[in-house]
């Protein structure tokens, strides 16, 4: 019964917080309106999102987010230096296949987003069974190392979060 009324508790909380940030003013009325929206929208959109992602370990999530933010900053500097100071003919771009151990769609989505935002890599496509991801590298001497780094640095942590 409760599961039917609140299909996605985290989504409800996020929606309420986003609503409060949007109106940019904290009052009881706004909190109520945000709460109603947070309860109503997940119920209305539940048919499109049947499964509930199984997330655990809030500290691991915070750790993951901090690592990704740090990597985004490093990635920006690296890519900027590559763009500015590397002649085009020296750039060695490569396609890399990363076979995944993750199975839940949410985890794969997060991983694909992380790959796009971090050092010199863009995730381009999934295999049709969804268990392998195609990554494009801006500049690399060793495609194997890129694949191993993605698997060790991000996928291992995501596997602990999305069990």
């Amino acid at each position, binding site marked *: 019964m409760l599961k039917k009324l609140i299909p996605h508790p985290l989504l409800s909380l996020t929606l309420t917080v986003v609503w409060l940030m949007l109106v940019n003013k904290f009052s009881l009325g706004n909190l109520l309106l945000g709460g109603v929206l947070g309860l109503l929208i997940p119920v209305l959109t539940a048919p499109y999102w049947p499964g509930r992602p199984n997330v655990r370990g809030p500290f691991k999530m915070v750790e993951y987010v901090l690592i990704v933010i740090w990597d*985004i900053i490093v990635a920006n500097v690296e890519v900027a230096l590559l763009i500015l100071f590397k002649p*085009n003919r020296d750039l060695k771009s490569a396609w890399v296949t990363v076979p995944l151990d993750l199975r839940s769609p949410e985890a794969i989505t997060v991983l694909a987003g992380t790959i796009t935002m971090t050092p010199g890599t*863009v995730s381009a496509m*999934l295999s*049709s069974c969804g268990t392998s991801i195609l990554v494009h590298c801006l500049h690399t001497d060793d495609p194997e190392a890129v694949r191993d780094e993605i698997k060790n640095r991000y996928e291992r942590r995501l596997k602990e979060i999305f069990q």
Partner: protein
Amino acid sequence: MIVDVIISICLVVGGIFGIVGSYGLIKLQDTMQRLHAPTKATTLGVGGVLVASMLYFLFKEDTYTFHELLISAFLFLTAPITAHFMAKTHIRMRELRGTLPETQRKHGWSLYDTPPEMLTDPPADEVKSLESR
């Protein structure tokens, strides 16, 4: 005074990353290479400007807004999705099938292969929406 310096640094860093991202769009040769420039450099460019404006309104105008946080969160969430779509568009347009590496799985890449559970008799629209997930 210190706040002034920090705001200025954020603005200058943001501006530099913004122009580098757009310069990369001109300079790089291959479409897939060009995809790297804006998705990375521009998010930090806009991010720097947003941090600067947040600090400015917090310390100079004494008003606080959470909208900057929302805008940057929105940009950080959507940048990978648009990049993914553009990469797929590029692969579709240029028909790069021969140049891509193997999937190392039983099934091929999603643009060229039908997903296994779809093989029976799916409506065409559904296959497409599943493909682009």
